[in-house]
């Protein structure tokens, strides 16, 4: 897995968490490190996963797993909230 700079870590977290918008291009352009840019481009779907190094792939995998995990946690939260508020 790569080690990102603070800035790149924040940008990639935003790229993976929020839908593609006007800010996506801006965010991609602000990435400082080349490898971080590759991670960002794969995550927003403009670069092929198989074209990058295993380290970059591992970082992409990590962020994708994170998003899946966040989804699971969100659904659980919503279910708890529904159950609590329907009482």
């Amino acid at each position, binding site marked *: *897995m*790569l*080690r*990102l*700079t*603070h800035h790149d*870590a*924040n940008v990639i*977290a*935003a790229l*993976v*968490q*929020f*839908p593609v*918008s006007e*800010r996506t291009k801006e965010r991609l352009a602000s990435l400082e490190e080349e490898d971080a840019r590759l991670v960002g481009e794969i995550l927003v779907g403009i670069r092929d996963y198989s074209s990058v190094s295993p380290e970059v792939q*591992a*970082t992409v995998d*990590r*962020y994708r*797993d*994170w*998003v*899946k*995990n*966040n*989804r699971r*946690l*969100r659904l659980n*939260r919503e279910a*708890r*909230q*529904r*159950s*609590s*508020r329907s009482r």
Partner: protein
Amino acid sequence: MPDKATIGEFLVGILPRLQNDTTFPSWPPDCFALCLALLKRSGAYAQLLRDWPPSKDRTLSIWAARVRKLGEKWQRSQPKDYPDDLEGEWQVVCQSFAIPLKELREQRALCEALMKLVAVADEACEGVGAPKDQAREDDPLQDLGADLLAEYGTLCLEIDPSRLRVLSRMHTPQNGLTERSLSLYLSLCEASEVTPQWQASPFIQNDSMNLLLIPWPFEVLVNQFRKTAGATARLPKGFGFFTFTDDSPEDLTERVQALHTEAKRRLGRIEGVVLPELSITDEQFRALRESLPQDCFLVAGVGDRETAGHPGTNEVRLSFPPLPDVVQRKHHPWKLNESQVIQYGLGGVLSPYREWWEYIDCTDRCLNFISMSEDLVMCALVCEDLARPDPVANIVRAVGPNLVIALLMDGPQTKERWAARYATVLADDPGCSVLSLTSLGMAQLSRPRAETRRSRVVALWKDRFNGATEIELPPGDEAIAISLSTRYDEEFTADGRGDGGNAAFPILSGVHPIGAPPRSKQR
């Protein structure tokens, strides 16, 4: 002139543009900060809540439902708009600018307006700053909020962080009545010398989390404590500086790897490794980080001795790949007094008749929050920082991180000692789960006069629901793996809003001593 400050002067002090431009602060965290700061300064919320909810809402559930609905509306109207329904409340605030602050609590309509703006802004910010999954539609509040939090350590857009900060919140106190009792999702932090830093880590949170606690070093020698002659000369008689040093740090890599492997074999996975205050050097930290799997985080107390009159360092390093490692210096130096010199048997190197200050650099104070999931925000404190109420404790209490890890260089972590007392305070209000960890070496060096010696109690766990749990390292073992499971409970604000049962509490759900790896050498 004393007692003449007005509401307008107070609010302009927070947001200067209100002097000339009183348009509604449409970014919810800004509105929250302005209105809650005013309620806090005047103490008006205590008076207001004596007769609550507002008469037009009739019941708390009607109030809560109405405010929640408005919050959702505000969230959807971002980034630049706000619900028209709040314009009336803001007008009430603006029309009160000339009223002296001290008279605020007598202005019922104004207090109700402030409370409503606080509550709606809070509801609008549910989940801001927490990791997301792209399932929702375009959500500028979440999107911009995450950027602000990561970049500036505040959610405010208009309010300068040197005046006030707003951070996400994980726990609302369920005891007592303070301004912290008034919100579920946002916390108000007074301007302070401490810079809060918020980092989202792509951490995979399972239903439970296993941590490997290594109470290193296993032996601490009296001669590792030394007085620092040059710096001490600057102090009045009766005081001195000391430093703690390890002249021949051992290569820990093989030992920690073996402990990690064994712990993983027994528990299936290990999410994090924790080492106590001043347990390793920078070089050891780097080697350990290199040797541990990247999906395992590392929280360790790292130190460096003083050199040629320059103070040493005492810091916690938080390593959560792929984030860069985060460094947080200890905020308060340790002061050894007579009883502590005797307790640790240091009289041969440090006179018990002086007070000895730890010679470390305490500048650049920051507090790091690692947002691991929507249910888990963690922060680490170093020793004294757990006990001293300022400058850091107010921020910890405001945010209420789910997990606080306190790295100590201290005696045994028994329930009677100071760390347990302060852990209990944080567990009670705001509701943090607290883990304290010291080294076996320090626990064994400690020989308190009055207490029974229990020198292998190296860690202590405290959460809101259970009494403090001592964690003991059995003879022959070198580490302890603990399991933490998340318990959910509903928290309520003092105005009667609930979070729907989503307040998350890590609970100690397993303790497993990990034996010495066969080939590791004892120190």
